């Protein structure tokens, strides 16, 4: 892995908000690399600045110091080769546009010709199993289906990096399992690099090829852990593996230490 060049590099990123009551240090210093074609999960205790980190990575928020580089270029505004799936699926879809138009709008912004657009949109919706709801409005769909539309929009955008910010935090457990498998499938089918943020330890181990564990705020990287589970994963088999249990227990322990403020990091 070390002989490849990273696609996405986060280097000594820090973010301090200026609030009315004084500065609030959300992120102290975060560094990690993501290599082409990887699926990396970022997990951390709640309130550790995961969303802040993702906003900096996706160019929506300028960091206080440190850099994010994508493809060798510093990210200062949303890059053209990155797609984002937000946690709040209900608010991230345009309610006045149909499912099809929601998926098509970013392609229009990029200047993709109409005929090609229609084909790409159709394929993306097929990929997420929603080809039957083209003309439906997002608010007529269930939460899980809305998040599928958001994933289809990201897929249709054909990004190099797909960034997902706790996308399944607000859906029920069964839907969540389906969506997790969908993310694995999309990742494999498209060969896209995925950065997946979650607060769910099991989810991070089940999905990721690597798990970056963040500390409590002010946030640093607590551990960068390779997940040596088989590439083919399924909800029953993988979660029953002894290695899965070991990994999740390990990450759980790290999070608990992180909450208590112990720095274990390199040890």
């Amino acid at each position, binding site marked *: 892995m070390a002989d490849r060049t990273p696609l996405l590099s986060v280097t000594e990123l820090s973010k301090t908000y200026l609030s009315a009551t004084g500065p609030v240090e959300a992120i102290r210093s975060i560094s990690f690399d993501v290599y082409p074609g990887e699926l990396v999960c970022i997990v951390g205790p709640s309130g550790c600045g995961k969303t802040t980190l993702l*906003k900096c990575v996706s160019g929506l928020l300028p960091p206080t110091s440190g850099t994010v580089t994508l493809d060798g270029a510093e990210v200062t505004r*949303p890059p053209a080769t*990155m797609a984002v799936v937000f946690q709040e699926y209900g*608010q991230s879809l345009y309610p*006045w546009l149909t499912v099809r138009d929601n998926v098509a709008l*970013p392609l229009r*912004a990029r200047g993709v010709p109409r005929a090609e657009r229609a084909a790409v949109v159709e394929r993306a919706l097929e990929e997420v199993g929603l080809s039957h709801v083209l003309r439906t409005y997002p608010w007529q769909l269930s939460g899980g289906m809305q998040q599928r539309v958001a994933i289809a*929009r990201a897929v249709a955008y054909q990004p190099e990096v797909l960034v997902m910010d706790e996308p399944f935090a607000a859906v029920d457990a069964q839907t969540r399992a389906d969506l997790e498998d969908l993310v694995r499938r999309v990742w494999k089918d498209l060969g896209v690099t995925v950065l997946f943020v979650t607060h769910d330890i099991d989810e991070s181990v089940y999905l990721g090829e690597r798990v970056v564990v963040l500390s409590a705020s002010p946030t640093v990287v607590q551990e960068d852990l390779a997940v040596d589970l088989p590439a083919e994963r399924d909800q029953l088999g993988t979660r029953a593996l002894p290695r899965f249990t070991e990994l999740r227990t390990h990450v759980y322990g790290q999070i608990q230490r992180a909450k208590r403020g112990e720095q274990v990091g390199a040890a």
Partner: protein
Amino acid sequence: MTAVRRTLASAGFTLGLPLLLLLGWAVATRSTTTIYFPTPARVGEAFVATWLDPEILGRDVLPSLGRFAIGVALSIVIGIAAGTVIGSTPWLRALLEPMLEFFRAIPPVVLVPVLMLVLGLGDTMRLAVIVSGSVWPVLLNTVEGVRARDPVLVDTSRSYRVRGALALRYFVLPAASPQIMAGIRLCLSIGLILMVISEMFAASSGLGYQIVFFQRQYMIAEMWSGIVLLGLVGVVVAAVFHVVERRVLHWYHGSREVSRG
């Protein structure tokens, strides 16, 4: 069977109270001797004789309604255009907001003499009177609607690089449209009032002029029939607005029903 009954019931609700009021009016004026409160039949006669007369229709009614339509259309266009610019530019909004509140608080009627001085006595002045009052609800509602965009949708649009004219058409204006439509509803009723007022000063034709003329000539039934006509125009305008609003905001009403249901 039930469909017929439902239609009858709905017609009953729509027309019931107006008919009742008409009946009350007829009863109250049955044996009256005062000329100020003519019977409904007398007002109805005056209505047909006055407002359906092609000469008056062409000279007074249609030009008035034309000025109302143009004035309101100008208010909507100016209000949305300026409101979008102000609402999406924080420093401009901070700069203009106190001044906008100041101008909005001025009753347009007191501006009529000033506008007469500056713009003369023609249609331009009358349009200016209509716009000077009816532009504010559209403008201020657009500013607020454009400003209060959902932050998640702002991030979504930014990260998918939906910008410029495309963002305006598919994000900014639709997001503000519920508030813009509420502004337009107010704009229409203010516009109708100001249409009448603009014709009460230095005018020789128009609906407002005719009503004042009848009043001064003691043509009381004719005067009342003009007031009835204004009310009917208001009802028609409201009905048209309702249809347009349902179409423009179908997603808004739909999503609200879903979240409630």
